[in-house]
């Protein structure tokens, strides 16, 4: 095979992998949107917060140390012990569930039956709150996240492809793990939302809060459940992205990479998140390679949105989104 083609294939493969990483973030959005019609602006910050908490637990940081020191003049920093990763992950999960519970209690409960834009706005408030809280709790400096995931070039693939084509493909092992995790998540979540009573209730809530209440669906239970699950998804995304870039503020900006994916796949579709991710991943990488050099590069950000835009013009509800019902 000619060099150019091989390279294009390599780029596409890497695009697919990048797409999976985007999809991991997008999944969290989809879940909450599906269950309440809320566009959760705080999803990115949730990923950051989860990752911060995980690292904090792992390294035995004292939460709010800085605040405590400032108030009491103490010099606390670490508990002096570290926590095994599994325990830390479980602990973080517990924190995310608690968070879900508090969000329902303090915010969503009071905003039942409000238009989507208002719930969206509440999540903006939430994002700010959580961002500040994360910083105060764990500090704003960069942290290394290591839960023992493999990273770096996959030697196996490199070798195999080298033997086949005389050109070794580069695939990041972390991306492979991410792809497997994403596949499991997508299958599990799809099954949950399509084939369980709770799943049906979830979609009902998104359509009409009041009607859902009137048939006895407890918005509370549904919301706590869904926010917990998306807290979990945020944690997974936080781990994957955090392993790449360390845990710090910019982690919350991965939400921006998830948006075009979300829109292309459809706000309400779990498989859409993954398919959208793959399309965006491949599309933007190929574009960056073929057209990018001619126009100065760094095109990925806007190209992802342009690509989503093109798809939306043909399918305004995204590839897998529920058809927008237009009737009078």
């Amino acid at each position, binding site marked *: 095979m000619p060099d150019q083609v091989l390279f294009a294939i390599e780029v596409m493969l890497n695009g697919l992998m990048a797409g999976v990483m985007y999809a991991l973030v997008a999944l969290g959005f989809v879940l909450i949107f599906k269950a309440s019609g809320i566009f959760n602006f705080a999803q990115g910050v949730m990923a950051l917060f989860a990752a911060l908490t995980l690292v904090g637990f792992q390294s035995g940081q004292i939460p709010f140390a800085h605040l405590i020191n400032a108030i009491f003049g103490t010099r606390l920093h670490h508990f002096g012990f570290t926590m095994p990763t599994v325990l830390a992950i479980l602990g973080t999960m517990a924190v995310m569930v608690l968070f879900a519970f508090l969000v329902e209690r303090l915010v969503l409960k009071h905003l039942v039956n409000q238009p989507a834009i208002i719930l969206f706005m509440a999540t903006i408030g939430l994002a700010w709150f959580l961002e500040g809280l994360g910083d105060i709790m764990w500090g*704003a400096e*960069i942290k290394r996240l290591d839960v023992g995931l493999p*990273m770096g*070039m996959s030697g196996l693939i490199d070798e195999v492809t080298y033997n086949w084509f005389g050109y070794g493909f580069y695939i990041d092992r972390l991306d492979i793990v991410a792809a497997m995790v994403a596949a499991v998540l997508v299958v599990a979540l799809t099954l949950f939302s399509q084939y369980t009573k709770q799943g049906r209730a979830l979609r009902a809530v998104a359509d009409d809060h009041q009607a859902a209440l009137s048939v006895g669906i407890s918005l509370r239970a549904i919301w706590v459940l869904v926010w917990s699950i998306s807290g979990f998804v945020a944690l997974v995304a936080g781990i994957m992205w955090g392993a790449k*870039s360390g845990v710090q503020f*910019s982690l919350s900006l991965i939400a921006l*990479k998830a948006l075009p994916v979300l829109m292309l796949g459809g706000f309400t579709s779990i498989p859409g998140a993954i398919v959208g991710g793959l399309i965006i991943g491949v599309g933007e990488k190929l574009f960056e*390679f073929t057209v*990018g050099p001619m126009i100065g590069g760094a095109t990925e*950000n806007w190209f992802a949105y342009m690509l989503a835009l093109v798809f939306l013009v043909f399918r305004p509800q995204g590839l897998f989104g529920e058809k927008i019902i237009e009737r009078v």
Partner: protein
Amino acid sequence: DLVIPSLSYRTGPFAAGGIPFADGYADYMTLINERDGGVGGIRIRVPECETAYNTERGVECYEALRGENPLVHQPLSTGITYQLIPRMTQDDVPLHTMGYGRTSAVNGRVFSHVFNYPANYWDGASVIINYLLEENGGDLSGKKIALIYHNSAYGREPIRTLEELAAKHGYALTTIAVDSPGQEQASQWLQIRRERPDYVVMWGWGVMNQVAIQEAANIRFPMENFIGVWWSGSEQDVIPAGQAAHGYKSLAMHGTGRDYPIYDDIQTYVVDRGLAAGAGDGVGTVLYSRGMYAAMLAVEAVKKAQEIHGVAQITPAMMRDGMEALEITEELMADLGLPNFGPAFTVTCENHGGTGEAMIQQWDAEARQWNLITDWIAPDRDLIMQLVEEDSMAYATENNIELRCN
């Protein structure tokens, strides 16, 4: 008292870099107060103002601090610097941008109130090339060098210099942009993997650094051929990549490690007395040292100003004079407890930029520390000054600025 504010950012996207710098800046001032009782008997006050690396908040901070008659500002943000250049010139307050900001501010004839000693971006680019020349026996022809840069004004700074130098030394330059913030660099590094450049030079900041180093490790790019600017060479940039970052190099505009006598003083007078701005565990890290170095240069300028004008309580205008007459010698550095920490240089009316010398440091992942591997390397001064002249004169005509120093 002498007011030397700190426009810091301890929150926002670049907090990780802003925190140690601000700590170093504050701690040095504290040291001066505690150990020497201030400068010339007057204590230094460092009001801090949080900018979150945001230009608007930078402006707010500047205005808020104006009433306190600050002697000099050090905003640690190119964006804020550009806001402040005309304002501060108008207000007659000097601005020190150490290793960032507007490079052509070197030209003191145009920029009366801006100082960017001891080195600037164009110097840095040239130093890297000179280092590589040295490594390659003075010949880079036929080599491939890739520049991976933050897709912003900051990241584009070295391109012109590197291009000029490419013409001169015969290497091939590829530039690869990374969009802010730089969390995703897969395609950039695939391209590097494919093109197999001999060297990769990086102009990054914040998360872009960590990701780039990780990605370089992933594609097994030889770390010793990967060189960052001084903003891409702190502990935080390499630690997240762990062992893989071993061998990564970067420019150093000042010494590294805790082996300077000054740190003992900081430990006794500042940290042990519970006066440290941070947790105290950052002392001696790269960005902390840089903050400290910036503070030290400010304090030396204060001394100079006091000397020139013969008053202890100097004004910002006097401070400017002090900065313009600043003279850093090796002996002075040694006296300050920082032997060979920074280059020796003299500021003049025409040249606000110092010598532009820098060293190269290399990361030792085992020991988790940066090691200096060269002595001071001088940039290609002629070329740089020519570029500076071009850019600053354009600014001067655009803004009807009368040239000074005649």
